[in-house]
């Protein structure tokens, strides 16, 4: 080892490290003692951390630490606490009637918050995160309801579903008039145009309204009612309004009439607890279309 540590810089009077660049020497400026101690303490701390907390990955697990700490267990505790805090309110949600929930601002807020979360987890895949629906999946924001838009009706639909296979499910479907040979293709075109005329949509040139009305009366009135106002008992849509689940253009109508439609809404009873289903019903009702 060279004796450069005895090399004293003439300007500052301090010893140098002996490193020299173009005549400029580096001063030997040791770190303050407290800094060095703090540095070593952080190393000790880090080692202690390895021992106390889960730290090292192993082949199929990890070291668990002295006290078996787990952040997952922390979450479980936090969630349990949350349930405890919410307990009374959620119980109130379970016992209050649907109408009472909507009248109580605090319960309404709770039901909407709960409903929104559960909707996002369970309903959004079909109805969309904002419940705006899609072709074949109803928009729950509007005022047109296949199975009724009162609180009780909405709750019933959520509970038992539509064509879900549940014992209490909504039944009824749009028959396949073309596929099953009930109507001939030209009759289907005529009745499709007639249906369009019900809500004031333009019809094909040379379309025979009288013939359409006759076909409609013979085949469709049973479900869709006189004048096509629909029937919520059977989930038959109102054909006179501006809302169309499968589209209102002639091709879409022809497809609907000849192939039939039978969209499925699953039953949520048994999958969600009663208080949650109530919250969902209130949430959907509060989206704007509720009757």
């Amino acid at each position: 080892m060279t004796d450069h540590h005895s090399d004293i810089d003439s300007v500052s009077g301090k010893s140098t490290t002996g490193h020299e660049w173009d005549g400029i020497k580096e001063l030997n400026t040791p770190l303050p003692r407290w800094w060095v101690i703090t540095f070593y303490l952080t190393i000790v701390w880090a080692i202690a951390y390895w021992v106390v907390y889960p730290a090292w990955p192993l082949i199929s697990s990890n070291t668990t630490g002295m006290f078996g700490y787990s952040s997952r267990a922390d979450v479980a505790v936090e969630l349990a606490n949350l349930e405890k805090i919410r307990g009374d309110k959620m119980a109130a949600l379970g016992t209050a009637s649907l109408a009472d929930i909507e009248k109580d601002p605090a319960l309404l807020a709770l039901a909407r918050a709960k409903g929104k979360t559960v909707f996002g987890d369970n309903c959004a895949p079909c109805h969309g995160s904002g419940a705006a629906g899609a072709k074949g999946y109803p928009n729950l924001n509007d005022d047109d309801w296949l199975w009724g838009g009162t609180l009780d009706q909405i709750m019933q639909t959520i509970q038992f579903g539509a064509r879900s296979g549940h014992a209490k499910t909504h039944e009824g479907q749009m028959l396949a008039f073309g596929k099953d040979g009930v109507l001939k293709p030209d009759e289907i075109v005529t009745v499709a145009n007639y249906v369009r005329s019900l809500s004031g949509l333009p019809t094909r040139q040379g379309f025979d309204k009288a013939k359409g009305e006759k076909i409609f009366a013979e085949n469709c009135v049973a479900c869709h009612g006189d004048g096509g106002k629909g029937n919520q008992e059977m989930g038959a849509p109102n054909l006179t309004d501006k809302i169309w689940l499968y589209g209102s253009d002639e091709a879409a109508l022809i497809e609907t009439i000849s192939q039939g439609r039978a969209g499925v809404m699953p039953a949520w009873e048994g999958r969600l607890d009663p208080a949650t289903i109530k919250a969902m019903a209130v949430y959907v009702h509060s989206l704007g279309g509720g009757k």
Partner: protein
Amino acid sequence: MNKTVNPNELKPAGDVGPLYAARKKVYPQSVSGTFRRIKWGLMAVCLGVYYFLPFVRWNRGLGAPSQAVLIDLPNSRFYFFFIELWPQEVYYFTGLLIVAAVALFLMNSVGGRIWCGYLCPQTVWTDVFYAVERLIEGDRRERMKKDKSSDPLKLERISEIVLKHSIWLMIAWWTGGAWVLYFNDAPTLVKELVTFQGPMIAYIWIGILTATTYVLAGYMREQVCTYMCPWPRIQAALTDEWALNVTYRYDRGEKRTSVKKAAELRALGQQVGDCVDCYQCVAVCPTGIDIRNGPQMECIQCGLCIDACDNVMAKIGRPKRLIGYDNDINIHRRQEGKAPIYRIVRPRTIVYSAIIAAIGGFMVYMLATRSLLDVNVLHDRNPVAVKLSDGSIRNAYTVRLLNKSGYDRAIAIDVEGPINPTMHVVGADSVTPDRPIIVIPRDSTSELRLLVTAPAENNPEKSIPVRFHVMDIGLGVAASATDNFVAP
């Protein structure tokens, strides 16, 4: 800094030298004088405010906290006498911090490190700890002697050490104790703490702050200022040639001579410096530097060396303020036989003052005119618009009403726009069928879902603005917000 070679630092060949630099312990001597009195006074004010402010009461009415200064974290409110701030008004703190920063710059351009020397908590608490140390262990010489002594510890010395650390810890504990009182009702919390019923987090914070106060004021002391604090570096970049700093007036002081020799030389009519090399300025310095070496980063400019030097000058019958608040410009002017000039008012200080006045004024204006009733509107994003069965268009909005006052409000809501909109508040119609009136409890917010429908014949082709008005039907206070109505 130290330009003389210290023979102790000369290492024999082959010695690698220490890997760390040990702290050179500082033993500041007691001193009396103008600046010491100012420091005592400011210390009393600062500590008095810190320790006792949480106990000051302020009546805000039933159900509201009655503590004048309170940071209510669980309810996210900040109370300061007549001001109550909500989390969304945190920008007032931003403004306050900007004003504080510029005030620091202003102090710096007028009188150097006034903050460091007189007001900084590190300085104030270190000063308190030094005072305790001096009271128990004696002044500079005695403390140095006791520290150096290799005699076995006697009972007297042991009791001194125990007493000093006990008092230090008590002060540190009170410091941490006062801190937590700002976050809870102080009298209640004190009662809980002394009966060991207090929340764990309070004890933890008291413990942390007891430890930091004890370590930083008892042991780290000037090292915090020299090594840890960024302000000395920033300060050095912000200072200018007119700023008054604690300065050794070397024009007067040099050449240093002993008292006796100076008298002899003066009798011969020769020019002699006033500095008698008594090292009193070094002895009293809490950072252990020699101010006569010029401005130094370690210097916190507490002015104690001014007091020490003034006392000596008075004794030897020379004019005071051989060390004083001054700058190089004046030293050079005096050397040239010109009168010193002091420019407190100059572009830099004017600009700083103007910034403080502008931001401070703006904040006061904002605070004075801020509404205690507010409304925020957020348009639904999904779906943005809904077509109803009769062809009319409906938009939904989430409306948040804020009632910052200390009483419940009954709020009427109206919507206004060129499309003749009708409005429906979800949940409100069952309470008040004719007109949506919402009751918001005091000091809280309510979130509502508002449905606005434009009749089919008024369907807008693109988005058009609609205005939401909310009014306290009791007091007539109103607020409004604008959002858009869009077609699908």
